[in-house]
């Protein structure tokens, strides 16, 4: 099996699916000859031509609006938004149009658009190249939200997304785009949406994360293990619809939960997870569910290392739940 990083795995998934399904097209800023600023679509225009890999004018609302029209007509567009921070000009097209098309038409017009976009901090991008806006889309009925945490996951999840019939926001954790490497099968495989993954089994605390924070969580869990603390680690991977059962079952077993989220704390997805766990596992909880999150400030430039959750903080949060 070849070893790939996440960018290569995404590229591999796109290439594979474009070969398999002529309806799949890519559009976005700088996605053709340049292959995207992170090179995730590198080489695709050479193989599939400019009709299927389209450099667009600089307008995210145009990219998503056009992708919707294409999907209505029967294509399978996979638009790229250059950074998640630049998705907001397309926000209306996403939350008022894409998300509601099937519903508002009484099922007549599904719009299977898979929006790929790099997100998250840790690359010295300041607040316009670092945001983690997942909560905004999870709160929008009609969208699925998927976040891979390594190359194997990236390929298998992306293939699943393109093959199902609902709109998806596919958030790629750019901090680990190249840093996360692993074996990725050649050819076809899919990972089902809506199912979390137990990355590590443990008994005392359930640690829940997604995307690049999974790796941060694991750092903290490793430190905890050195202190003899046994943690179960869950990679949510599909944030909408999310896998309540796997998470709640784990917490019922461990009695404690820590959620690690990079986005600002208030009204983030961790709040939903915390509320859900408390609602469903209160009788099993031996301490309040803890959230370790980004602060409620815009993402900073120089101090990003102080802003983001890290392994030490994961450890101290784990300890806090144990000491409660």
């Amino acid at each position, binding site marked *: 099996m070849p070893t790939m990083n996440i960018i290569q795995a995404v590229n591999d998934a796109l290439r594979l699916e474009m070969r398999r399904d002529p309806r799949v097209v890519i559009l976005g800023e700088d996605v053709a000859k340049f292959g995207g600023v992170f090179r995730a679509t590198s080489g695709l225009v050479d193989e599939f031509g400019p009709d299927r890999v389209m450099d667009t004018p600089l*307008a995210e609302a145009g990219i998503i609006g056009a992708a919707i*029209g294409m999907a209505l007509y029967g294509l399978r567009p996979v638009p790229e938004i250059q950074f998640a921070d630049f998705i907001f000009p397309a926000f209306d097209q996403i939350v008022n149009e894409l998300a509601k098309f099937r519903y508002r038409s009484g099922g007549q017009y599904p719009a299977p658009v898979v929006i790929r976009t790099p997100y998250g901090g840790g690359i010295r991008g300041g607040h316009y190249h670092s945001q983690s806006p997942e909560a905004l889309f999870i709160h929008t009925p009609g969208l699925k939200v998927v976040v891979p945490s390594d190359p194997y996951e990236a390929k298998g999840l992306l293939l699943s997304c393109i093959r199902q019939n609902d709109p998806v926001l596919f958030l790629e954790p750019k901090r680990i785009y190249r840093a996360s490497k692993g074996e990725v099968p050649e050819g076809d495989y899919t990972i089902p949406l809506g199912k979390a993954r137990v990355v590590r089994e443990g008994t005392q605390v359930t640690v829940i994360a997604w995307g690049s924070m999974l790796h941060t969580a694991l750092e903290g869990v490793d430190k905890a293990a050195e202190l003899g603390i046994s943690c179960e680690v869950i990679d949510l991977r599909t944030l909408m619809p999310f896998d309540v059962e796997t998470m709640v079952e784990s917490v019922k077993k461990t009695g404690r939960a820590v959620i690690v989220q990079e986005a600002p704390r208030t009204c983030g997805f961790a709040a939903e997870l915390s509320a859900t766990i408390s609602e469903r596992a209160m009788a099993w909880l031996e301490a309040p569910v803890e959230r370790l999150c980004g602060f409620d400030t815009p993402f900073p430039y120089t101090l990003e290392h102080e802003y983001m959750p890290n392994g030490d903080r994961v450890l101290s949060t784990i300890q806090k739940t144990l000491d409660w």
Partner: protein
Amino acid sequence: MVAIAKNDELKRVIDEEGNVVKGARPPDIADEELRKIYRTLVQVRVVDERMMRLQRQGRLGFYMQSTGEEATHLAVAALRPSDWVFPSYREPGAAFYRGYELEQFIAQLYGNAADPIKGRQMPVHHSMNWINYVSISSPVGTQIPQATGMAMAAKIQGKDDVAIVYFGEGATSTGEFHVGANFAGVFKAPVIFLCRNNGWAISTSADRQTAAKTFASKAVGYGMPGIRVDGNDVLALYQATADAAERARAGDGPTFIEALTYRVHGHSSSDDPSVYRDPDEPKRWQQADPLARFQRYLGKKKLWTPEWEEALRTEFDQAITVAHDKVANLPPPDVETLFDDVFEELPSHLREQKEWLMAQPRTKSPHYFH
């Protein structure tokens, strides 16, 4: 900018008296088709009147009339049934022309069990995928880049389908209009931008939307032809649309058509235009009435008679009554359906929410069944 302006650059085929204007040649349309076009114009007028009455009686929650603008709807007559329509909320004639049934239309207004969109949207937000009439959205302008995308897709797939997208002059102020038109120019997408300049966006007059001399002039910025058509002249609209479709199918890209017309009534049933515009303004519109003009033209061609008019109106009046009787008292959609179509399949959180709701005592709508 004044609506219904006399303007040299305004393309016309027939004048107010129904005479072919000097230098113009009516498009080559079979008599039966001319009569079908007129039929549809009358249908819109009659339907609008009846529905507005129902709204005023408190039976419909909301309604929007097209009076004065009906001719713009018939641009679709110059297209193939396989072409796609991206409507705004004010072009029911384009749907009737394509065979949208009165029963379905009325059921949509009631949002009841027979509503093709299952009571999901406010009145006048139709959707009919069986006639390529795309689901209507309230947010102004959002359909514009979507139409461009559909047209790009047709081109990519080597099909010669075109898209026509309808919007008001107010919509040209949105970012969506700009990005949709700009993409269309760049990708030479086979799409026709049909701007109904009816002079008003709710209470805002057209000259507050832009300082451009005409809306058609905006086409320059997108590298596409922009033409200004008398929007009350159904033949001029037909011709402009046919030309645009031909260009589009030939691979020459998009066209922007400004149809100069007039919004005779309020913006919607919730509006009271007397607050913001001269009550005499609509009266001046009378002479421009697209129905009267086309009627005179047809009369001269012996395709229209007062008897036919009478018959038509009676026919629609009765058809509306029949359709209304059939659907108006249907029950609302089943409560279970609230959770359908959010996704293709029901995920577990929605299944739980549905179960919870079904276990609650049913509540009555304060509005349903008056």
